[in-house]
């Protein structure tokens, strides 16, 4: 037992009042000089004991009355660890938090979790006593405060509940509870509750301790978590990832995509047909997974050949199950026609110089006979080419063991990078660190200072084997894709990170050596990027050029650096804002869009906006997962596309252990359906009882006082 308003208990000190009045009455005496003392004495003697007992009874009743009132207003609670029995406990000020995340779309074949939660919330509202006030928050990745402040208009809350629908977002109950506590703050002295209707997915409660500390600070607020009926062992098969394998997607080239299928159920999945389709077309590739164990994930490679450059969307699908939202996953890609790459070496004519050789072959991993058709056009040039050529045509320029650049070349190269070009530097034996570090133009562009090359001491230094922090190397965080840890070097330039004031241009490590020193670093410079490796792209100092992952590493590096080939900007989370620069000619043109909500039919989607003198396609209507394509009249191909992807966490329907939720104070999760969860002990507020008892005692006191006042 406990008190919800313990401060009011101090009011019990008012018990001193009747005692004081009692004593005061004894001292407030009227004196009468009296003749008939004989009769008076007899009467007093006869009645004295009775009078004393009557006085004592009245005094005790008055003290009891004050104690009962203090207990009532201090809100005495019996069985505080139990679930709240709100019905009949008087008006309450409550905030209902309804989980709106994608996992709430899980269906039992008749109702979704969201439907059950909504019904449970409506039932709870209907049980509330008159005078109760309710606010309604819908918790997704952002908390939608549809009724931000508690209102007494409960029918309005119910109507708002009726029109609420689940989203494809993740949920964070912590944010909802924080806002609910803020909303309840002004209601001092009222019974305050936060009612959470959620499937209690583990990922929705990321920081229980923090929530617990908030609740401890707001001791007068009760948290109650109502489970709409999530059942253990619910099966769910999901596509948890869809990404492009190669860095750059080009027209008429076979492009690889990686799909990850996960089994979150408790039984193995077999014969799972996985398909990949482009835009609205039929599947272009198909794989059948023979067996997928519970809790396991399988990555599948599927290929697509894009017929022409432009925006495409791909949809991966698996057979329908009870959580439809993760049975399909989309990705949007931009396919380019070709890409120019320049490899600058000290002597491009010398065949023996292999710095450019390995690079060229790794960038163009096709037979010589097909190189003419390949989208990548490689030009191997001498450093003086930089001084005279039009560098803006190049997507990426590689400096392979270039000893130094003259001022003109360096100036051109700086201009190129600043305006959006990409520069990759592989320093080799010919390079003097000072020639780069001290160069007034080249030096400031570098993400790190080159140290003197370490002497070959016979010990090989390896690249890190896991925990890759950069998008270029993130692919190898999955061991299934190989391991960069087998790349070893016997000599390299130690890299010291350049200091910068601008966090946007802060150097980022692509990969480290096992001793923690950087092996490759990149930084933003102007609108372009500069990547610096710690050694050459030859076999002089390391096995990097002949390592199996050298080709994919370079391909991913190309994909990362090539501005038009970056598909990362085309992937959004639900509710995100899409924004993409398009051709300036399109500014002001009417847009139509094919979205997951438009059933394949184009719908008006505003205009191409002009932002900072650049034409931009912008969309905020991104609540649903799936592919979004934007068209302008007169053009058949989409001018922009993106995909909204479900957070893979939502597919994991594992619920949080009840004991973990129980630490949130006095409440334990309650089931909306009593048949699902055994009944929890009911927590009772006894203020009505104490108030009633006080009323009865007051009546008894008045009655007795009246009766005692009759002369005897």
């Amino acid at each position, binding site marked *: 037992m406990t008190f919800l308003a313990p401060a009011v208990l101090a009011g019990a000190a008012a018990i001193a009042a009747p005692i004081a009045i009692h004593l005061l009455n004894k001292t407030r*005496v009227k004196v009468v000089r009296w003749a008939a003392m004989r009769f008076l004495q007899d009467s007093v003697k006869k009645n004295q004991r009775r009078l004393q007992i009557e006085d004592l009874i009245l005094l005790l009743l008055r003290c009891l009355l004050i104690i009962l009132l203090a207990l009532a207003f201090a809100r005495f609670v019996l069985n505080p660890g139990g679930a709240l029995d709100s019905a009949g406990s008087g008006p309450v000020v409550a905030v209902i938090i309804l989980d709106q995340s994608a996992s709430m779309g899980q269906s039992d074949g008749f109702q979704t979790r969201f439907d059950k939660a909504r019904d449970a919330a409506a039932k709870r509202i209907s049980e509330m006593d008159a005078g109760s006030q309710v606010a309604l928050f819908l918790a997704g990745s952002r908390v939608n405060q549809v009724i931000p402040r508690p209102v007494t208009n409960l029918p309005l809350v119910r109507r708002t509940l009726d029109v609420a629908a689940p989203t494809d977002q993740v949920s964070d109950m912590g944010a909802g509870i924080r806002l609910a506590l803020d909303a309840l703050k002004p209601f001092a002295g009222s019974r305050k509750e936060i009612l959470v209707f959620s499937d209690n997915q583990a990922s929705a409660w990321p920081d229980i301790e923090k929530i617990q500390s908030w609740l401890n600070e707001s001791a007068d607020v009760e948290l109650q978590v109502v489970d709409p009926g999530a059942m253990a062992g619910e099966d769910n098969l999901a596509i948890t990832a869809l990404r492009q394998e190669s860095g750059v997607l080009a027209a008429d080239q076979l492009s690889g995509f990686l799909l990850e299928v996960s089994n979150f159920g408790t039984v193995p999945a077999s014969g799972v047909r996985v398909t990949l389709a482009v835009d609205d077309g039929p599947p272009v590739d198909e794989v059948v997974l023979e067996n997928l164990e519970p809790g396991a994930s399988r990555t599948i490679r599927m290929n697509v050949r894009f017929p022409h450059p432009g925006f495409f969307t791909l949809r991966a699908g698996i057979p329908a199950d009870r959580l439809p939202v993760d049975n399909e996953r989309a990705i949007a890609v931009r396919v380019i026609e070709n890409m120019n790459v320049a490899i600058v070496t000290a002597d491009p004519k010398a065949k023996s110089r292999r710095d450019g050789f390995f690079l060229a072959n790794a960038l163009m991993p096709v037979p010589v006979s097909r190189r003419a058709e390949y989208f990548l056009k490689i030009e191997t040039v001498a450093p003086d080419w930089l001084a005279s050529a039009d560098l803006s045509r190049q997507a990426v320029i590689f400096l392979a063991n270039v000893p130094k650049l003259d001022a003109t070349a360096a100036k051109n190269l700086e201009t190129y990078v600043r305006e959006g070009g990409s520069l990759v530097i592989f320093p080799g034996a010919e390079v003097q660190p000072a020639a780069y570090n001290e160069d007034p133009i080249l030096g400031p562009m570098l993400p790190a200072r080159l140290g003197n090359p370490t002497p070959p001491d016979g010990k090989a230094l390896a690249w890190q084997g896991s925990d890759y922090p950069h998008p270029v190397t993130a692919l190898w965080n999955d061991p299934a894709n190989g391991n960069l840890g087998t790349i070893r070097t016997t000599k390299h330039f130690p890299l010291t990170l350049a200091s910068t004031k601008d966090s946007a241009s802060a150097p980022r490590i692509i990969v480290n050596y096992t001793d923690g020193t950087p092996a490759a670093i990149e930084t933003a410079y102007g609108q372009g990027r500069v990547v610096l490796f710690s050694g050459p792209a030859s076999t002089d100092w390391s096995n990097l050029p002949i390592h199996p992952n050298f080709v994919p590493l370079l391909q991913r590096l190309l994909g990362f650096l090539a501005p038009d080939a970056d598909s990362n900007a085309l992937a959004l989370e639900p509710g995100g804002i899409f924004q993409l620069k398009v051709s300036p000619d399109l500014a002001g043109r009417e847009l139509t869009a094919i979205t997951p909500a438009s059933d394949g039919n184009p719908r008006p989607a505003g205009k191409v906006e002009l932002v900072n003198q650049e034409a931009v396609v912008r969309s905020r209507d991104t609540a649903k997962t799936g592919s979004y394509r934007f068209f302008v009249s007169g053009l058949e191909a989409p001018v922009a596309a993106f995909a909204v992807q479900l957070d893979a966490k939502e597919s994991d329907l594992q619920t949080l252990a009840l004991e973990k939720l129980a630490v949130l104070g006095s409440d334990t999760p309650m089931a909306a359906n009593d048949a699902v969860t055994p009944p929890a002990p009911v927590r009772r507020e006894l203020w009505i009882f104490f108030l009633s008892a006080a009323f009865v005692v007051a009546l008894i006191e008045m009655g007795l006082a009246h009766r005692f006042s009759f002369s005897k």
Partner: protein
Amino acid sequence: MAHRTKNLLDPNAIAKGEALGVIARGIVEGYRVGEHRSPFHGFAIEFAQHREYTSGDDLRHLDWKVLGRTDRYYIKQYEQDTNFVAHLVIDGSESMKYGSSELTKIDYAKVLAACLAYLVLGQSDAISMNIFDTTIRERFERTDNRNKIHEIMHRLATFEPAHGTDTARILHDLAATLKSRSIVILISDLFDDEEALQRSIERIRFQGTEVIVFHVLDHAEIEFPFTGTVRFVGLEDGPRVQTNPASIRKSYLEAFNAFRKRMRALCERCSCHYVLCDTAQPLHETLSEYLAFRQNHRSR
């Protein structure tokens, strides 16, 4: 009449002899208006016959009316030669000082005694007066001289109670001095030893003397209307009692009414007239009621 009487019973006036006389005369004269027979006639001697006046006869017995009509001197002769003596015995103990209003019991007793003195002297009977507490404090010897009325009033008016009471002993002593054909009029609250009182009255009655008891009580003593916490302090060196009177009122009234009943019964046993005098009731009403009762009683 009532209004006039109420005004007459001004305690300040009662404290002055002349004023007390005026008050008593006012009440008594008021009573006499419209009356044809004095209620105390029976106390006087019975008229027998006339005889010729001879030298040495008391001129007070000369029948002036006969002289006026016939120019002859006749003396009125009576069957008995003696007048009744009314002995006013007034309780002057401290308990008589109680009064829930400005009018105390002793004030009331003084006016009552004054009225009776007027009545008795007014019909040429004799009167004596004793004011007592534990002993006789004021004694006024027997007289039938009307001129003495002023002195009686003065004695009454100036008396102030200061001691306890011993009514029985006073009556007992009085009985020893009584002669026949007298009336003892006791004016008291009778807060005394009841058995002793009974014995004393019985003794007086045994001598053939009529006794009239005017039981003077304050209205608060009869009704006990107090509320709140009250500390009662005894007037005759009694103890102090602090109580909530409302809660014992019933018990008190039972005891007090029983006392009144006992006093009435005592008087009835002794063939005395018992007259309850509530100080809240106008004196003329109480007096006229009793005198009317007495007149009727005699006429039967």
